[in-house]
């Protein structure tokens, strides 16, 4: 048992709740970066206002409460709790012990410092050691090599390649599903960074 080992704290970042007052303005800025939106979402990229985000935060907590198949976290720096991203385990099917995982670091300046690796490590432990899930899926477009690398390093393997499923900038791209089984995780990423 690793009860005393914190589920929500890593070296530089932590998983935290939504701050309905402060977070919306920061996240609104990220949504004005089309690059960020296109990495995260398949829907047409669209910037959002803080007001729209506040409504989304309410929907997220409502869904978390009612459907019980979503676990949503903000990602914040230690020790000042500065908001840097989000992380979620979603579409969880309890009877099959499976679900989906996604994370995002909003400001490009906060990327490639190893925070994504720390977030993913916390998420995987939460999924496998706390939710007792058997497998996780990550859906990643082929034009997102940083995410593909991050998840592969964590033990995910390419399982599905939906050919030319995406169309952006005049080119067709494949959409990949990466998967990891509980036995493939086994506490990886804990040793090194």
């Amino acid at each position, binding site marked *: 048992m690793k009860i005393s080992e914190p589920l929500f704290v890593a070296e530089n970042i932590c998983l935290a709740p939504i701050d309905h007052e402060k977070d919306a303005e920061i996240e609104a800025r990220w949504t004005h970066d089309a690059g960020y939106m296109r990495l995260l979402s*398949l*829907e*047409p990229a669209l910037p959002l206002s803080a007001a729209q985000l506040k409504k989304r935060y309410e929907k997220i907590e409502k869904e978390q409460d009612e459907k019980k198949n979503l676990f949503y976290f903000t990602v914040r720096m230690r020790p000042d709790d500065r908001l840097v991203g989000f992380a979620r385990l979603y579409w969880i*099917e309890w*009877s*099959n*012990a*499976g679900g989906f995982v996604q994370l995002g670091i909003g400001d490009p300046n906060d990327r490639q410092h190893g925070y994504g690796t720390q977030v993913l490590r916390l998420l995987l432990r939460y999924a496998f050691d706390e939710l007792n899930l*058997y*497998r996780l*899926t990550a859906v990643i477009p082929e034009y997102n090599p940083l995410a593909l690398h991050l998840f592969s390093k964590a033990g995910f393997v*390419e*399982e*599905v*390649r*939906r*050919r*030319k*499923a*995406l*169309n*952006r900038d005049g080119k*067709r791209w494949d959409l990949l*599903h990466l*998967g990891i*089984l509980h036995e493939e995780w086994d506490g990886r990423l804990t040793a090194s960074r």
Partner: protein
Amino acid sequence: MVNGEKIDRESNTMEKDLFRGELVKLAVDEPQTVAESFSRWVRDSEYWRLANSNPVRAFSTKAIKDWLEKNPENTRGDQFIFSIRTLQDDLLIGDVGLDGVLWSHGDAFVGVGIGDREYWGKGYGTDAMRLILRYAFIELSLQRISLNVFEYNLRAIRSYEKLGFVHEGRSRAVLRRDGQRYDLVFMGILRAEWLDQNPDG
């Protein structure tokens, strides 16, 4: 003949009835009608377990009707669901449709289910799929169609392969039933592939 030219009526797709196949036709029914049939079908647990990953349960007609009325099909821009009725007896035997349409990418997921096991393995499902694919490519101008199917649904997989779907991978051990784990198989068909196999549309 018109002006010396023979008009090939077969190739004029605008005149084709998009909703009519060889064994079945696509229709839209009232929630009460759908609910009555659906609550009967789901009592056949094999039907449910072939199509659904969440646990099989019993549903009353009223519960289904209430849900349908709260969630009207075909009013969201990303969903096109039809009833399947036999041409011969106008019997409601299942449903088929597109969901999760990603318009800017031109992709959608297709799903089909024949509720009455009397009509399994006789070409009804395949005929309905042919209709929905034609609808997707000819009427919605989509660029590809995706589907997923449980690895133990061999009849469906064979039927999709015959329709031209290509295997694109499997999510391992997604499903747990009867003490065993099963994969979720993904398949897809591109517009060019479908046009190749269906030159007349």
